[in-house]
C-alpha cells in the first residue's frame, strides 16, 4: 500500500492527480489524504482528513509514504520507519504563498530515507523502484535524544 498525504493547511491537487494517474496503471493499493482539494481521484481511496492514530497507522503500514514537502511528515516517516517521497508545492503554480517548500527539498534530500521530486516524472521514477527505497537507520533516532540530554545538562550545570 502507498499512503499519500498533503497536509491540512492547503490542497495539493497536482500531487493527488499524479498519484491517481499512477494508481490507474499499477496494481498497488493507494490511499490518500487530500485536504480541501478540488480534484477527486478515481483510482485511489481518499479522505479529506484523518485522525492522528489512523494517519500514523497508514504511514507505518505503507511501503512508501508520498507527501507534500512538510517537516511534520518527514519526522513521522522516520518515526514509523517508512521511506518517504516528498514533492514541493510551487509558488508559480499557485500551490503556496511562497517557495519555501522548494528550498526545503534541498535539506530534505540530504537525509537518509527521504526522496525528493519536483515533477511528475521524478515522482514516477522513484515509484518505479519502490522495493529499493531505503528507510533511515533507526540508530539515527539517537540524534534527537543526544541533543535533548545535552541541552538538559547545559541548563542544569552551565557546562558545554
Amino acid at each position: 500500500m502507498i499512503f499519500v498525504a498533503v497536509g491540512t493547511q492547503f490542497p495539493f491537487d497536482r500531487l493527488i492527480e499524479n498519484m491517481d494517474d499512477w494508481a490507474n496503471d499499477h496494481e498497488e493499493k493507494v490511499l490518500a489524504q487530500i485536504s480541501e482539494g478540488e480534484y477527486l481521484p478515481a483510482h485511489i481511496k481518499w479522505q479529506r482528513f484523518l485522525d492522528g492514530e489512523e494517519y500514523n497507522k497508514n504511514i507505518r503500514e505503507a511501503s512508501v509514504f508520498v507527501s507534500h514537502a512538510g517537516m511534520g511528515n518527514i519526522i513521522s516517516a522516520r518515526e514509523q520507519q517508512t521511506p518517504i517521497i516528498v514533492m514541493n508545492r510551487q509558488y508559480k503554480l499557485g500551490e503556496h504563498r511562497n517557495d519555501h517548500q522548494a528550498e526545503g527539498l534541498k535539506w530534505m534530500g540530504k537525509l537518509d530515507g527521504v526522496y525528493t521530486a519536483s515533477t511528475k516524472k521524478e515522482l514516477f521514477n522513484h515509484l518505479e523502484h519502490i522495493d529499493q527505497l531505503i528507510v533511515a537507520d533507526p540508530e539515527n533516532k539517537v540524534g534527537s535524544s543526544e541533543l535533548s540530554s545535552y541541552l538538559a545538562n547545559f541548563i542544569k550545570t552551565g557546562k558545554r
Partner: protein
Amino acid sequence: MPEKNKQKVLAIASPGGHWIQLNKICNPLETQFDIVYVTPGAQYSSTKSNQKVLNITDASATSKHKLIPLALQLLWIFIRERPTAIISTGAAPGAIAFLLVKFLPIKTIWVDSIANVSILSRSARMVIKHADLVITQWQPLSDNKKIIYKGSIL
C-alpha cells in the same frame, strides 16, 4: 503538574516547522524541567493537553511594527514565569527574547532549524553574540566553539 523543585524553561518558536522542531527537542525534557511553551497562534499549537502554551504576537523581519507589542508581551512573560533558561528554534520571536534577556541571569539556547544546511539562519546570526549556546543540526556548520553540533531532531 508543575513541580516546585523543577527549573522552569521557556520554549519559544514561530508556528510551522520551527514549532515542530521545538516540540521534538523539548517534549523529552518535560520530565526534568517545567517547560512553558511560547508561540504565536498558541490556540492551534498545543499537541498535548497538559502542556502550558502561552500566546504571543507574531512578528517577522517584514512586520517590524509588531516588534514592540511582542517585546512587551515577552517581558511580561519573563517577569511572571522567571525562567532559568530559554530555548528557541527561531525565528523572530526567539531572537527578540534573547536580546531582551541579555543582561538577566537567564541561560539562552538557540537550536537552529534543520532547514539551515549551508549557513545559519538570519535570526541565529543575529543572536550569536548574545546567546549562551548556539546549536546547529548540521555538522559542517559547527566550529566546535561557539556553534555546537550534537545530532539533530531527525
